[in-house]
């Protein structure tokens, strides 16, 4: 009995050569139904999460752009303030030079000024 079962199992599980055209058949079938493998069905929950992620990215992008704009404006206004201050100091010193030159021109030669 046992021997008979063993013999039948061996016969059923023996290695069988699939044949030369096995690979070609498999490839032909996958080529026929590519969508099955490329795009698995998407559940509504996944689509929702994707939309949420996209919206979050857009909001974050806008926020970063706004912050960049604010920082750029601050830098620009600070540069403008420094420019005006630099011109003010320059003008003040040119004014001083003018005053000292005029003073020297007006002063008598032996005044030492």
């Amino acid at each position, binding site marked *: 009995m046992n021997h008979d079962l063993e013999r039948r199992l061996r016969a059923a599980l023996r290695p069988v050569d699939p044949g030369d055209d096995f690979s070609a058949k498999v490839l032909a079938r996958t080529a026929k139904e590519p969508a099955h493998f490329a795009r698995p069905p998407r559940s509504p929950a996944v689509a929702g999460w994707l939309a949420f992620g996209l919206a979050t990215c857009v909001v974050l992008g806008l926020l970063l752009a706004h912050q960049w704009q604010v920082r750029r*404006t601050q*830098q*620009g*206004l600070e*540069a*403008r303030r*420094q*420019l*005006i*201050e*630099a*011109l*003010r*100091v*320059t*003008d*003040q*010193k*040119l*004014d*001083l*030079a*003018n*005053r*000292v*030159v005029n*003073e*020297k021109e007006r*002063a008598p030669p032996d005044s*030492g*000024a």
Partner: protein
Amino acid sequence: MTSSTTASFARRWPLPLALLAVLFVPVALAGPPAPLKLPDLEALAAKATESVDITLDAALLGTAAAFLDPSDPEDAATRELIGGLKGIYVRSYTFDKDFVYPSAAVEMLRKQLATPGWERLVGVRSAKERTTVDIYVSLDHGQANGLAIITSEPREFTIVNIVGSIDLRKLHQLEGKFGVPKLPLQESPPAPEKPAGK
């Protein structure tokens, strides 16, 4: 390119290379002078009651210019004035009592300004005001492309260095807007340097 390739290139093209050199060297020489190497005045700043430390390179000047309102006459004039500038550097220190400035710092600047290209436009010392003012310009074909001002007053020490093409007439036009005085810049030669009467 290896040195042997360069050498063979130079052998094959001697005339074009010479022409390029002749064409480009004057352009390089005609450029504005490099910014002055300003002395380290940290110690002075620590003792000052008020200090101004401004470093505006070409990029920052561009940023500042973008924030000047072209419809405002003053801003428009300022924009025009700074159009050819490559940098503005200001160090100014105010003290609450009379102060002796580090002469080494001033000498270091004067040495840089003694190099060819720079000319002293104004050099005056007022014994009455105990003030020294030196104004130097860097000229290229009669056009100022650099300006340096060193002033020392009993309670204030200032260095200004402007790099780039400066139209002094435009600076005159700004008179009254930033307090620009009418300077006899072209009319009178530099005043002879006299001892400060110490």
